[in-house]
């Protein structure tokens, strides 16, 4: 008897707990109740397909990061060779992981090898004929750089999305090679703005102008060559490739870059045109102060993503405050400030997949999903009551309990409800009554074999126990692979099925039996069972 009391207490406690976590917040939300907040925080969240929003998959072009490193290392070697007076022929980055040095004089070969030692932490050196050397990035360095560039891109996207003010965004790495980033932005409708902000490289560089602007590249060259340590940068035009593009010859080394920024915000220039004001960090401010003091009267190019936005004349020494002016709209200025604050991307991004779900489409899905669930559950309930009569009530109680536990578990682990997830819910219930059917059919058989009611119930539950364990484990195996395979909504579906199977074991074996025992405990002599 006390054994039964504990079973009843367990079932009631489980019901109350899962009801509080899973069902109460849903009911409360509907009637505008917001208390208690520690429960409301756990409310089941809707997935993108129900809520509406943007789903993007991007690929990080990790080759970019390799190319950048190869070029930087080559430039570093060039500087070293220059300071040590070692003459070479052309130096050239042949692809993202190789660079080549030509024409090292035999007399300076030893000195060259010595100088090259400093890049050999990351590169393997191999000698060719006529003083040619090829440097190849080490495989482990390549892997590390690729991983880093994906992580860095993800973090940058996270900062940008947070700046956008999206509630509950989800940003995750995925894909077989791990170079894809999944971005989900619930409730966002302006897809194009979101896409532009996420993808912009956002590389800001301030460089001293040596010559220009000039309408042609050739006009800036001496002897048809770009002078050493300099580069030609196109100006920003209204449309890319516009005939009116101007070119600037600037020093290759940047005075300051985006990493020296402390803050950036929208502001106005002296003509009341939209502009971005920025503040430099202490270190950046010191560098900027020195450079501007030495170059008063010259032009400073403000280069964003490889294009000169403007090239104002340096009137006096500037320490930490500056302004990016150009032909911007107010919205562009807001986006630019946001991108600059969140930092630059070291690798470019391309879109692989893009989905937008309008809020009306999501609402339609909720409506039809809920309707189908209610109809499906009602049909099952009616069937069980007609077929199993009073014992059917037992099955229906188990089914409702299953529903409550499942909702509670999903809410507790913070699972997201998707449309396939709703389908999983209904199917879990429809297939879940199987456990009750199995037990009830067995009880019937036992009764027909002439056993007493109590004995039949016990035998029914005991014999079916291992069958249920077997069927549930086999189902869990396929659910596990489904989870492994799926993305987004399908994962939601797999999670629903997984927890549905677990809670079904509890309700059908433990709760349902307790209910039988409770009913029978009232009566001394039991001769018939309504089943």
């Amino acid at each position: 008897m006390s054994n039964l009391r504990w079973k009843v207490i367990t079932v009631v406690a489980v019901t109350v707990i899962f009801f509080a976590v899973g069902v109460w917040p849903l009911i409360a939300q509907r009637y505008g109740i917001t208390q208690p907040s520690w429960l409301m925080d756990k409310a089941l969240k809707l997935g993108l397909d129900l809520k509406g929003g943007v789903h993007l998959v991007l690929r990080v072009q990790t080759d970019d990061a390799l190319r950048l490193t190869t070029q930087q290392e080559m430039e570093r070697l060039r500087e070293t060779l220059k300071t040590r007076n070692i003459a070479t022929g052309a130096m050239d980055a042949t692809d993202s992981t190789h660079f080549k040095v030509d024409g090292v004089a035999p007399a300076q070969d030893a000195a060259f090898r010595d100088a090259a030692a400093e890049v050999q932490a990351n590169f393997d050196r191999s000698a060719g004929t006529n003083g040619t050397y090829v440097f190849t990035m080490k495989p482990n360095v390549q892997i590390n750089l690729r991983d880093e560039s994906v992580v860095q891109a993800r973090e940058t996207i996270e900062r940008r999305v947070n700046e956008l003010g999206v509630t509950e965004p989800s940003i995750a790495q995925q894909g077989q090679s791990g170079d894809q980033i999944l971005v989900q932005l619930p409730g966002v409708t302006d897809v194009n703005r979101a896409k532009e902000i996420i993808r912009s490289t956002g590389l800001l560089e301030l460089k001293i102008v040596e010559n220009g602007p000039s309408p042609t590249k050739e006009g800036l060259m001496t002897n048809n060559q770009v002078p050493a340590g300099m580069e030609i940068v196109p100006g920003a035009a209204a449309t890319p490739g516009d005939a009116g593009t101007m070119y600037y010859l600037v020093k290759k080394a940047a005075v300051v870059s985006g990493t020296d920024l402390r803050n950036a915000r929208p502001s106005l220039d002296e003509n009341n045109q939209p502009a971005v004001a920025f503040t430099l960090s202490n270190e950046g401010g010191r560098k900027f102060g020195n450079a501007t003091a030495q170059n008063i009267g010259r032009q400073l190019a403000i280069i964003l993503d490889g294009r000169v936005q403007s090239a104002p004349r340096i009137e006096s020494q500037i320490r930490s405050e500056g302004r990016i002016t150009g032909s911007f709209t107010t919205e562009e200025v807001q986006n630019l400030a946001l991108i600059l604050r969140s930092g630059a991307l070291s690798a470019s991004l391309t879109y692989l997949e893009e989905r937008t779900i309008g809020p009306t489409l999501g609402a339609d899905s909720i409506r039809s999903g809920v309707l189908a669930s209610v109809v499906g559950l009602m049909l099952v309930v009616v069937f069980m009551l007609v077929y199993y009569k009073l014992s059917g009530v037992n099955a229906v109680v188990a089914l409702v309990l299953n529903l409550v536990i499942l909702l509670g578990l999903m809410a507790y682990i913070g699972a997201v409800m998707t449309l396939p997830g709703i389908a999983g819910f209904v199917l879990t219930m429809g297939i879940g009554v199987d456990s009750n059917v199995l037990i009830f059919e067995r009880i019937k058989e036992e009764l027909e074999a002439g056993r007493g009611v109590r004995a039949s119930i016990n035998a029914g539950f005991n014999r079916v126990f291992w069958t249920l364990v077997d069927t549930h484990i086999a189902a869990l195996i396929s659910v596990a692979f489904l989870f492994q395979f799926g993305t987004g909504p399908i994962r939601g579906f797999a999670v629903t099925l997984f927890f549905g199977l677990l809670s079904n074991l509890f309700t059908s074996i433990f709760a349902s039996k307790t209910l039988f025992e409770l009913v029978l405990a009232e009566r001394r002599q039991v001769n018939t069972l309504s089943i």
Partner: protein
Amino acid sequence: MHIFKDTHFDFLRWRWHAIALSWVVILAGAFVFFTRGIPLGIEFAGGTAVIVKFDQPVPAQNVRAAMDKSFPGGADNIIIQSYGDPSQNMYMIRVPSVGAESGAALSSTKQQVVDALTTNNVGKFTEVGTEIVGPAVGRELRSRGIWATVLSLIGILLYIAFRFQFSFGVGAVVATIHDLLVTLAFLAIFRYDMSLNVIAAILTMTGYSTNDTIVIFDRVRENLRGMRRDSLNDIINASVNQTLGRTIITAGTALLTSLALFFFGGEVLHGFAFTMVVGIITGTYSSIFIAAAIVSFWRGTTTRAAARAPATTAPAPQQPQRKQKPQRKVRAS
């Protein structure tokens, strides 16, 4: 109440008919597959789908005409179908191509679709949803989908072989592969798009079908202990009969919920619900007719070397049917 009370159907007798029927369905599906292919959903095939909602009812041919006139390449490969409830005036326009998979160009095809509708004045509309999937994503998903299915089948085989005997594992997996092929055949014949949701339904159905089979095997195992004097075939028949009520009722409740999803679940769940309905029916059928028959074949060929019945090729000469013994109620201690 009883649907089936104390039945004594000789299911194994019908195994050749059942196997023949299954082959007919599977071969019909294979024929459709090789002649017309299986339509792939946008997640697998890649492409651009735009869902637009018009303010006024617009005939589908107007939408097609607009695409034909203004969409680069014409409307030949474009699928235009009504989406959701017809009163919503929604169309899904699906184009097999996407903009270049570089930079932000992916959505340029979508823009071309929208532009074609705008320039031809088909009617005032809003974009309610878009789906643009590049070829790389589809390629990766295809291989992952196949692996998930194969691995889950192997997992089930191992589990059943561990809990029962190897022959039971083979029976369950053959039955599951059968269900998979029959379901795919139906999907091909009824031209449902192979989408992520359909794959999810297929894997769910696999679990359901195994479930069904395990219940019967469990009873066979129990009866193997209790009916030592009976032949394996009699034991199998008795087991299928004893669990028949449960099998049918479970299929019924699962079918009720799947049908509710099919009729009320909306456009997105249509393929999913169809797959479940077909899967539940074939899963139930295979548990009754196929799974146990395989166990019988397997045991027959491995234990009785004399009877070399070719299990997989043409029907063996019909064995004289054993007289049906009255079934004892089995009450193993």
